[in-house]
């Protein structure tokens, strides 16, 4: 029994490294810009297009800013469409450092897409 348990543990350890993870390929392309990129209130602008380069219109877009360190309070912004495929809003960045954004898109069809985008390093405010 112990021998078998030992083998089982070895097997589990092996599995741990062997399991490949699925990469999801996005059906929507996003371009994100943030101004001024300092601590405090920032304007965030996301441009969405389909793979065939046509703008994504009528979607619901949410941006969640998160730090590259576990457990910090995320910042959330709901964007509104200001031009076809262009979504804008404001986001509050709470501290300087490395951030990234998760963009949650709900297409008109009801399909949801999640994108992960890097943000430029957030600087201290004035």
């Amino acid at each position, binding site marked *: 029994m112990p021998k078998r348990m030992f083998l089982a543990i070895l097997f589990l350890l092996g599995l*741990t490294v062997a399991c*490949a*993870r699925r990469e999801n390929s996005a059906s929507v392309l996003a371009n994100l810009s943030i101004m001024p990129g300092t601590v405090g209130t920032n304007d965030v602008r996301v441009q969405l297009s389909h793979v065939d380069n046509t703008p994504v219109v009528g979607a619901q877009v949410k941006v*969640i800013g*998160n730090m590259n360190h576990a*457990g910090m309070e995320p910042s959330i912004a709901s964007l509104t469409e200001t031009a076809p495929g262009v979504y804008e809003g404001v986001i509050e960045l709470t501290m*300087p450092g490395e951030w*990234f954004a998760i963009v949650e898109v709900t297409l008109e069809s009801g399909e949801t897409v999640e994108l992960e985008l890097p943000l430029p390093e957030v600087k201290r405010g004035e």
Partner: protein
Amino acid sequence: MNKAVAFDLLKTPLLGRFWRWRHARTVMQVPLFLVALVIVWDGLTGSPLAPRNLATILPWLHYRGFVVLALLVFGNAFCMACPFMLPRNLVRRFVQPTRHWPARLRNKWVAVTLFVLFLFIYERYDLWSTPWWTAWLVVAYFAAALLLDAVFDGAPFCKYVCPLGQFNFVSSLVSPFEVRVRSHTVCADCTTHDCLRGRGTQRGCELWLFQPRKVGNFDCTFCLDCVHACPHDNVGILARVPAAELWFGGARSGIGRIFRRADIAALVTIFVFGALLNAFGMVSPVYVLEAWLADVLNVQNETPVLALMFVVVLLLEPLFLLGAAAWLARRLGNLAEPTVRVALRYVYALVPFGVGMWAAHYAFHFLTGFWTFVPVVQSIALEFGLTWVGRPRWDLAALLPPVWLDPLEWGLIGLGAFGSLLVVAELARRDAPRRWLWVALPWMGLVLLLTLVAFWLMGQPMEMRGTLLG
């Protein structure tokens, strides 16, 4: 220490019954071992972004938070359920090491070095933001525990090597419970000493703590082997006055006199000043200081800058502060002992403050980031096609409203500082019954100074960058 019949956790109906069962520790270890596997798996194969990976969330938020909170209300709960000891115990069923841990290494110096190294690597490579390195750290931990304990008998890894264990041993000095004999008269009539030697297949204390002469929590992993080994059912988990063992200068089984042990004093020093340094690593001023130091040293690389900071904060500053306080106390109180001896005793008074500082810091991360594992688990489930879990809730994070955190942190630091002041007073009363206040004064000043530093740190804006320079 306290003679009255103490409250005994092993006599409680549910928990006590469970812990009295021989396989209780294994049952606690298995889930943590599985979590460790998940951490390694996600860390090596999942997202490289810290908040999207369980390898960074679970160890750096949940494990650390849980460990300090459990130490505050109970005792050394992590060692009790330590997953690293599970494969090690399994291997021990086939391999019975006969070699003894080298006599020269039977002290805390290796562990102190590893503790400093760990703090350094944590800062230098920003472990908190790298799932991949965190996963490898866990693997290395398993390997080291397995290897050392397969070669040497007893539990040398826990006692002489493991930095996490040392953290727990020091913190548990202020814990409200300890594994202790219920009646010394029963021990006096005992001839077999199974709590140390073991009985049949039941191990005795692998950390070489002999129950009748064991004092306090230092070096105790709460593994409960002694509880199961004692044929007279004379060992319990008893309530006690937290921190009272810090002014006990007598001999302790398996340790000796802590007031004569420079290695343990060094460990305690690193523990206390490391608490401040670790918190300093995540506030804005650290980046200003590092940039300035890099400029002065004329280097681009972070390693020498950080190394300098470590030398100053963990070596020069404590040497100066402890030396000055000890020297003053000796002068003011007309103590006969050399200054070093005074420092070796009073440094233990700083432990409650250190615990308070670590607790405030880790409780902060634990409470602000508690729910962040939910969206990560959701997205892993989605990867495996379990769509019913729904869209990952990336907005989840804090367990408590942020306004509660400041008072909590200040409270924990204040409580620790208060504990330290009490220990200073107790030590001083034993040193100079008439002039105790004079002896205590410099040490109380030191405690207050460190507390002010801690409050200042907590008030600084946080900043989170991978590289401190640039």
